């Protein structure tokens, strides 16, 4: 590269990087470029999520493909002066691979990205989500054009069927088949609904996609509407995702202005109205019939199926409901052909899977891999392994309806069927990695309390059964468990699973069932020995200050919100066990060189870390 070539700076403005102040960074960058008078040589593009949120704020520079991570305000002048002005990348700011300590200058060489295969996230981080021309330049709206000017609705559906795309919301129902059912359902008024009510805790795929590439979702909605002859399409987005809503609104305005949404699109007979609805914080609304009730302005409670929404959905009319990622996939499938998608993946699970990889993993963020990739490749090759060299214990997929898969299944391929066999589900794409510091009884209780709290209360097995399970788990966590509790839990789990109306209740026992199946010994320890091996369950542990290693810095006393610690310089620091709320603040702030605050089993003598 010569010093004169024109460069483009891609600055990530997704929610992750924004919360690391990338908006401020953007301004500083603009000012610095003005100050150094190189405005003509540089174009700044704000992008949506690059997926590697943990390394935010992220700046990428083309044509070199340089990747700068965790950029600080004070780094900007250096980047502008050296890289943008003189063409010399700033080596000090290169991304450092945590495992090898190696500096990696280029985006594509970073293991987090190089092991991915991006079909659904194809534009994320590559375009300005608020610029429709960026999207069009990369082949955007080609799918819509091809569908409505060259294909019949039946041919569009056939193409989606041939791609083998299965619903990315988690259940994995074939998308093309769903469209066919919607098309064949009798009725002159039909609807398409995009489910962007991404309620699973630990999942942010749909948010990132809508923030980074809203047009791809919109285009998918348009194609689906054409395929089933819908006159109106709705997108139902979580209220917690304001930026996603804002970007989608902008996309809708721009595409309307270009005649891609509205009446007689591209001179054809196809017309469509798009509506945006925001959720109001009810997890159960991710369930399709509950979501439809919510759009209608009612309490979001599920109803029995059949009839399925394809027969009787919104206001009783045939309705096709698709997940955000499924729709983003269809826009490219129609543009590029079914094979573009079906040649990736396994025989029964085509294409790719998008995961929000988080938890105790070195590199967390948004990842897309071919279906059938192993857990090992996701967690180790892309994720860089477990934080702080701790021992990998389990991985949880599928949110509150999913389950925990133990470490010995690390070489299992990730696809719909393998995950179901292991007792969990694909879900919408949350993947939370756990290490030895995660208590499996505690994590089971966490998911169950979520499901119990979000249960709409319509059917008894879910409403009462989840509460009974929760009370049993609380008893075990508090050290009051009895051996028969395990049997009770298993029995309740089966009852709730079989007797509940919707996916929330049917899935709620999965975290319990999988932890009982793979981590029974931890339940037994809690019950028989009153011991939590991960040192998490607060009733079974206590915090102590080890006088041998204490350096009398007083950090623990200062941070303690309960004023439970006494002591001063030269006087032993002691934690008053009656006042201690076990929030672990002292444990966290104790300097690593001392590590004097230790966790000990409450029912054992002597402290162990």
């Amino acid at each position, binding site marked *: 590269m010569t010093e004169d070539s024109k460069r483009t700076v891609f600055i990530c403005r997704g*929610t*992750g990087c924004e*919360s*690391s102040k990338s908006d401020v960074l953007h301004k500083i960058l603009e000012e610095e470029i003005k100050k150094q008078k190189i405005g003509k040589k540089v174009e700044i593009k704000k992008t949506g999520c690059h997926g590697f*949120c*943990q390394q*935010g704020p992220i700046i990428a520079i083309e044509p070199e493909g340089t990747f700068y991570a965790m950029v600080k305000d004070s780094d900007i002048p250096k980047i502008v002066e050296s890289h943008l002005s003189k063409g010399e990348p700033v080596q000090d700011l290169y991304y450092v691979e945590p495992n090898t300590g190696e500096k990696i200058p280029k985006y594509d060489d970073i293991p987090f990205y190089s092991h991915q295969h991006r079909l659904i996230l194809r534009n994320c981080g590559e375009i300005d989500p608020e610029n429709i021309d960026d999207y069009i330049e990369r082949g955007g709206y080609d799918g819509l054009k091809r569908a409505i000017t060259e294909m019949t609705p039946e041919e569009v559906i056939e193409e989606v069927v041939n791609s083998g795309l299965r619903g990315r919301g988690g259940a994995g129902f074939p998308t093309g088949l769903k469209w066919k059912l919607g098309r064949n359902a009798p009725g*002159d*008024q039909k609807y398409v609904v995009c489910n962007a009510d991404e*309620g*699973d*805790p*630990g*999942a*942010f795929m749909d*948010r*990132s996609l809508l923030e980074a590439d809203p047009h791809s979702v919109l285009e998918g909605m348009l194609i689906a509407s054409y395929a089933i002859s819908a006159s109106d399409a709705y997108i139902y987005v*979580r*209220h*917690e995702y304001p930026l996603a809503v804002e970007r989608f609104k902008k996309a809708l305005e721009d595409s309307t202005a270009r005649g891609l949404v509205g009446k007689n699109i591209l001179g054809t007979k196809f017309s469509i109205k798009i509506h945006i*609805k*925001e*959720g*109001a*914080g*009810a997890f159960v609304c991710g369930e399709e019939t509950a979501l439809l009730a919510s*759009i*209608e*302005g*009612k*309490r*979001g*409670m599920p109803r029995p199926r059949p009839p399925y929404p394809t027969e009787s959905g919104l*206001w009783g009319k045939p309705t096709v409901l698709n997940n955000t990622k499924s729709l983003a996939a269809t826009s490219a499938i129609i543009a590029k052909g079914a094979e573009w998608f079906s040649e990736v993946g396994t025989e029964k699970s085509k294409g790719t899977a998008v995961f*929000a990889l*988080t*938890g*105790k993993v070195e590199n*967390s*963020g948004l990842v897309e891999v071919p279906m059938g990739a192993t857990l090992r490749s996701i967690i180790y090759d892309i994720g860089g392994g477990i934080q702080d060299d701790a021992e990998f214990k389990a991985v*949880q997929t599928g949110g509150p309806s999913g389950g925990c898969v133990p470490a010995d299944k690390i070489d299992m391929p990730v696809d719909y069927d393998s995950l179901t066999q292991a007792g969990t589900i694909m879900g919408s794409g*949350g993947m*939370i990695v*756990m290490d030895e510091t*995660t208590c499996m009884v505690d*994590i089971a209780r*966490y*998911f169950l309390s*979520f499901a119990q709290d979000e249960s*709409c209360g319509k059917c008894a097995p879910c409403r009462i059964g989840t509460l009974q399970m929760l009370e049993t788990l609380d008893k075990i966590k508090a050290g009051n468990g009895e051996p028969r509790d395990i049997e009770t839990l298993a029995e309740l789990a089966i009852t709730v699973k079989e007797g509940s109306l919707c996916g929330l209740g049917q899935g709620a026992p999965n975290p319990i069932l999988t932890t009982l199946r793979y981590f029974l010994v931890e339940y037994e320890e809690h019950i028989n020995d009153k011991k939590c091996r991960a040192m998490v369950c607060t009733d079974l542990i206590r915090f102590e200050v080890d006088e041998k290693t204490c350096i009398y810095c007083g950090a623990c006393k200062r*941070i303690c*919100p*309960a004023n439970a610690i006494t002591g001063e310089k030269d006087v032993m620091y002691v934690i008053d066990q009656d006042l201690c*709320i*076990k*929030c*672990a*603040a002292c444990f*966290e*702030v104790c300097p690593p060189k001392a590590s004097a605050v230790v966790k000990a089993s409450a029912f054992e003598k002597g402290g162990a870390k």
Partner: protein
Amino acid sequence: MLEPSREALVSELISSLQKIQLRLGYIPQEAIRWLAEEMHLSEQDIYGVATFYKNFRFTAPGKHQVKMCMGTACFVQGGESLLSATTERLGVEPGKTTEDGRYSLERVACLGCCALAPVSVVDEEIHGKMNQRKMSRLFVQIDKKDREEKKGKSK
């Protein structure tokens, strides 16, 4: 054919409630009464829908709103410990407002910033990779700012 206007009107109920809450910070009883009249619904109908959804609150929020994410990633990264320390520090249970009306504390479901876990939102600003020390400093700063503001006013 469009859906009957009655259905279209009712389908605006949730967004109307959201607009009210956005302006007032909560949904007072008067607003429900007004909305009922406007939409030709009973107050019970509106309460029935409003109380179903977690986002709606029916009491005024505190001056500073502290939301602590309890999504799975935040939970696994110590969110629960952080919440119990904050509960103790502010002297208020999640879902409630302090007696002096300065802080309201909420535990929220996933905010979708999981790669930055644990995450807290204080007065609409997202704070990622939170820890006990950062949390404690944040409250010290807010308290200091409030004291200065108060001093400025009394001068």
